[in-house]
């Protein structure tokens, strides 16, 4: 730990000077749009000379670089004995300190631009999420790795008897980052995965972009009459082609859309999950992925609160499942960490076992909620829709909506029926298991020892019908069994509380 002491002697540090360039260019990306608008706008005015225009552009540029230089100057961080401190802000200063034992996990992210400069963004995850996390943008890869090591070593130190504050854990054997590979996705698997990640987000993006740059187009995009007129030339010919050709046209249009969706899915998946590797290192699970933006996340194994196995409506036919860990730290704005996004069940089992859980066995004693709960839920969703449908029947303009609403109501009732069949829960000696969902079921496995509170809730209807909901306080996620019989819920709560009380929070198994 000599490096940490040296740093403390040096005191405060700044992030890497190249960060000025990287953030400057990053900000410029946001400024490009107003700049384009300014360019086109000035064309309309015509009076502005080229010189003035260049001056404006130069000013924007200067403002940008100056701003990022100033914020670089005004940002400093300190890795001290007990916490990580960050001070930043040009006009209003902001000082933040995060104690080591609150840091859940240190993640390293590398976007395309920082990568060209060999820089990374380091984030200290505390579980508050989003903007409130302590972030360092950007430091060198080595500094990032070093910070991660420092935090980990500091975190482990207090676990020893606190008799002498100087007691440091015995240094782990060298090369602690070389772990055993648990899961990886070769390119073929990745493309296969992408095929199931059908996404029409590109259509939405195109639409939004069109709306943004509409003023540049020589015609009004939303002028329907104009479109009709434009179509009346070739469109007349189109209409004359007859029913079969129109059907073919529709088919081609849908096929194009489907192809677009699949290609988007593949591209997005390849960009996000390229070279996906999950390793088990002495410090926990380490996941690396990404083609343009590389991320490197390490989750300590004992911080995994629960594991979730999910699937999709289509992919389940081929037996593809995804595995994610629930923990307090956040993974790109989501509470769950993807650890194996596309794998067969047999591949998932060893990973789950490494995290200290096991997947439901064939002889698991599953229970269903009270059928009354499902009946009430079906009534609650179906009856208002049906009434709205009946109301629609009274007016000629809205008559056509009624069958649609009736169909939705029927679907809701059918869905509740199937949910009653599929959703289940179980409590065995060491775990709490639930299965949710109908077409794309999701199984969550949690350990009762890692729960923080247990609540039994009952609404007015539930009280009359004699069922209740059992809600667990899980760090970083939700876990609830709905519609249980009260005796059953109380028995389960008793069992869970016993296993919580048996293990003290401070001595949870690692």
């Amino acid at each position: 730990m000599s490096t940490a002491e040296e740093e403390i002697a040096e005191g405060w540090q700044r992030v890497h000077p190249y960060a000025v360039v990287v953030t400057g260019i990053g900000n410029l990306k946001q400024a490009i749009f107003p700049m384009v608008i300014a360019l086109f706008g000035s064309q309309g005015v015509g009076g502005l000379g080229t010189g003035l225009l260049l001056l404006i552009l130069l000013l924007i540029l200067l403002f940008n670089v100056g701003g990022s230089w100033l914020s670089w100057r005004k940002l400093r961080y300190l890795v001290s004995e007990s916490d990580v401190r960050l001070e930043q802000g040009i006009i209003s200063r902001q000082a933040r300190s995060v104690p080591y034992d609150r840091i859940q996990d240190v993640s390293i992210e590398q976007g395309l631009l920082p990568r060209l400069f060999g820089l990374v963004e380091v984030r200290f995850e505390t579980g508050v999420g989003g903007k409130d996390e302590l972030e360092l943008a950007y430091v060198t890869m080595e500094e990032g790795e070093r910070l991660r090591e420092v935090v980990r070593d500091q975190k482990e130190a207090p676990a020893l008897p606190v008799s002498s504050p100087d007691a440091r854990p015995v240094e782990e054997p060298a090369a602690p980052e070389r772990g055993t590979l648990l899961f990886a996705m070769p390119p073929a698997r990745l493309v296969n995965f992408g095929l199931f990640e059908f996404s029409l987000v590109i259509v939405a993006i195109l639409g939004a972009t069109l709306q943004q740059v509409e003023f540049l187009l020589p015609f009004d995009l939303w002028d329907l009459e104009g479109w009709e007129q434009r179509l009346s030339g070739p469109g007349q010919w189109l209409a004359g082609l007859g029913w079969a050709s129109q059907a073919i046209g529709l088919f081609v249009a849908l096929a194009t859309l489907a192809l677009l969706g699949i290609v988007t899915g593949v591209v997005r998946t390849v960009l996000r999950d390229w070279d996906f590797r999950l390793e088990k290192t002495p410090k926990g699970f380490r996941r690396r992925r990404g083609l343009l933006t590389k991320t490197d996340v390490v989750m300590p194994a004992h911080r995994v609160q629960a594991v979730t196995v999910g699937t999709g409506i289509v992919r389940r036919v081929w037996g593809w499942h995804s595995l994610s860990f629930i923990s307090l730290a956040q993974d790109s704005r989501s509470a769950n960490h993807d650890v194996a996004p596309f794998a067969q069940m047999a591949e998932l089992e060893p990973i789950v076992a490494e995290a200290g859980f096991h997947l439901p066995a064939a002889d698991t004693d599953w229970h269903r909620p009270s059928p009354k709960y499902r009946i009430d839920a079906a009534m609650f969703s179906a009856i208002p829709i049906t009434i709205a449908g009946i109301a629609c029947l009274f007016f000629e303009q809205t008559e056509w909506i009624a069958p649609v609403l009736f169909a939705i109501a029927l679907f809701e009732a059918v869905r509740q029926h199937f949910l009653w069949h599929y959703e289940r829960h179980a409590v065995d000696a060491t775990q709490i298991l639930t299965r949710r969902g109908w077409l794309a079921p999701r199984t969550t496995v949690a350990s009762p020892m890692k729960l923080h509170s247990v609540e039994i809730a009952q609404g007015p209807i539930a009280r009359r019908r004699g069922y209740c909901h059992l809600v667990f306080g899980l760090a970083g996620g939700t876990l609830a069994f709905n519609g249980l019989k009260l005796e059953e819920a109380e028995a389960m709560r008793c069992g869970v509380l016993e296993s919580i009380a048996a293990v003290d929070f401070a001595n949870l198994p690692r």
Partner: protein
Amino acid sequence: MDPRLANEGLTPLDPSYVTVLRIETLLIALPFVAGALAGEIGGLLFTGAFLVPVVLVFSLLVLMVPLKRFNARGYDISDDRLRVVRGLMFRKDTVVPFSRVQHIDVEQGPLERAFGIGRLVLHTAGTHNASVVLPGLRHETAVVMREAIRGHVKRETL
């Protein structure tokens, strides 16, 4: 067994909590009563058309409901867990083991201070029930409970 959450064996809250609840409801009611008075003075309808129903409804709300809410609440503290029961319509029965408490607050608003009562707030790491509030305790009781629970709260490692 009655399929409803019961309050048997629970410790009731401090009776002055009813008064606090009543005053709080009264404060909510005041603007409505003022509105009704304005309606009366404006003389839009016959005398008492606004004031009588508003005052009737709110006197019911101020007198009856706080008592019912008070009766629906209760807690049970054992040597390793706290149970908090609350809710008139939507019953909630929460148990927090002391070993999972992150930190503890005793809070007191101005009204609560006037009546010498306080709120005990237990914070947990769970996303659901991140803070469990137990209002209407005698302030001294709340402080004693805080000290008792604090003895159990171990250093956080999770």
